């Protein structure tokens, strides 16, 4: 067995035994500071591709989990974790796609006040955390998502949020005020172009 194989085995065992996803540094703490853990992770990724267990990266942490297509074999009788309310889902989506974001900004998008409990539930689930204060009058608290959010929703990073590129490109993550100005500019440009065209005629 080559030293590479030894390291791969070691990383495999450590990830397998861990109760939580591990960062490269955390893995190094167990397999040796000098180890090329990233290389071992890449080998493991290949080794497990298409298998019943998969190696996945969530944020900057790695863990093994069962393949998603086998969910039907594994669903447990245990009742599903408390279902999120619609307000909870929307609030979570707004935080994830806009982070960091204040409560007032969430409310502006949803058009209704959010109850204190809505964010509490998301924090309790470990998906949302306070993320500093916005330096505006009142210094409101901002919220952002956590590593646990990425883990739970199977996202390698926030860039993997469904449709985030399209939403960004369409300006749908910009605040209304900004979008309003842009729309105004576009119209003016369009008007300018029409003028130009008619000038040529």
């Amino acid at each position, binding site marked *: 067995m080559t030293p590479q194989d030894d390291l791969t085995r070691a990383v495999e065992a450590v990830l397998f035994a861990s109760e939580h996803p591990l960062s490269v540094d955390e893995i190094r703490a167990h397999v040796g500071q000098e180890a090329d853990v990233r290389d071992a992770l890449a080998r493991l990724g290949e080794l497990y591709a298409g298998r019943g267990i998969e190696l996945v990266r969530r944020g900057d942490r790695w863990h093994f989990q069962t393949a998603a297509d086998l969910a039907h074999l594994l669903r447990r009788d245990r009742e599903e974790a408390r279902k999120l309310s619609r307000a909870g889902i929307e609030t979570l989506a707004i935080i994830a*796609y806009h982070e960091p974001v204040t409560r007032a900004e969430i409310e502006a998008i949803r058009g209704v006040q959010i109850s204190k409990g809505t964010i509490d539930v998301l924090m309790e689930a470990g998906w949302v955390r306070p993320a500093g204060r916005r330096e505006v009058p009142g210094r409101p608290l901002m919220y952002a998502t956590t590593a646990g959010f990425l883990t*739970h929703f199977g996202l390698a990073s926030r860039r993997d949020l*469904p*449709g985030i590129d399209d939403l960004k490109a369409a300006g749908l993550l910009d605040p209304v005020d900004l979008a309003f100005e842009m729309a105004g500019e576009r119209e003016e440009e369009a008007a300018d172009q029409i003028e130009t065209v008619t000038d040529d005629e």
Partner: protein
Amino acid sequence: MDADASDTLKIELDGWEGPLDLLLALARTQKVDLRQISILQLVEQYLAFVHEARALRLELAADYLVMAAWLAYLKSALLLPRNPEETPSPEELALRLQLRLERLNAMREAGARLVARDRLGRDTFLRGVPEGLRVVRKGRYQAEIYDLIAAYGRISARTRPVMHVVAQRDVMTLEEAIERVSELIGARIEWSSIESFLPEGATGTYRKSALASSFVAALELARQGRVEIRQKSAFAPLYLKASA
């Protein structure tokens, strides 16, 4: 109360999270991209909904009525000849409303896609009984001598006057020594070395203290004319005798 297959929505007040939510639901019944919706038509839909709800004597929350009033104003502003002085223009207001609906709709769809993902603990699973990892960190503390003395300097500067802890020491006070020497001197006829005035068995620091105090006591008694002191040379033994 369900209208025919028209675009009106079922009156279900509990189902709406506020006027914007209701407006979005109504807008969706136009079955066009939100960018192409007719705001005027949307206003009509909303007002009709509110009208119907009131006809059914359903209690409408105040914010729905405020929105209705605002939309009624928007509608008339959009229809009436435009007053160029007026800002923001009704078209701007309509555009802002449409932008808000688009944003709410985008987040609603994003949320739906998010919760439909393969979720850990529901669709994918971690290992059932991980052995667990332990890193036992042992600290090897480091500090330099400079850190230590600088810290002491800092404390001293900060907390002067410093509380000094004086260990209890066995001493002979000057008063004790004067008393002792004057008592003993009466019994001595010859010159006696100062050491002979120290308590028997005195050792260590107590002896030093007794010697020092006895010496000072001797000087004091000599000043009072009660004792004579003799010494041959510097550092030579010291002798005491009662004054004649």
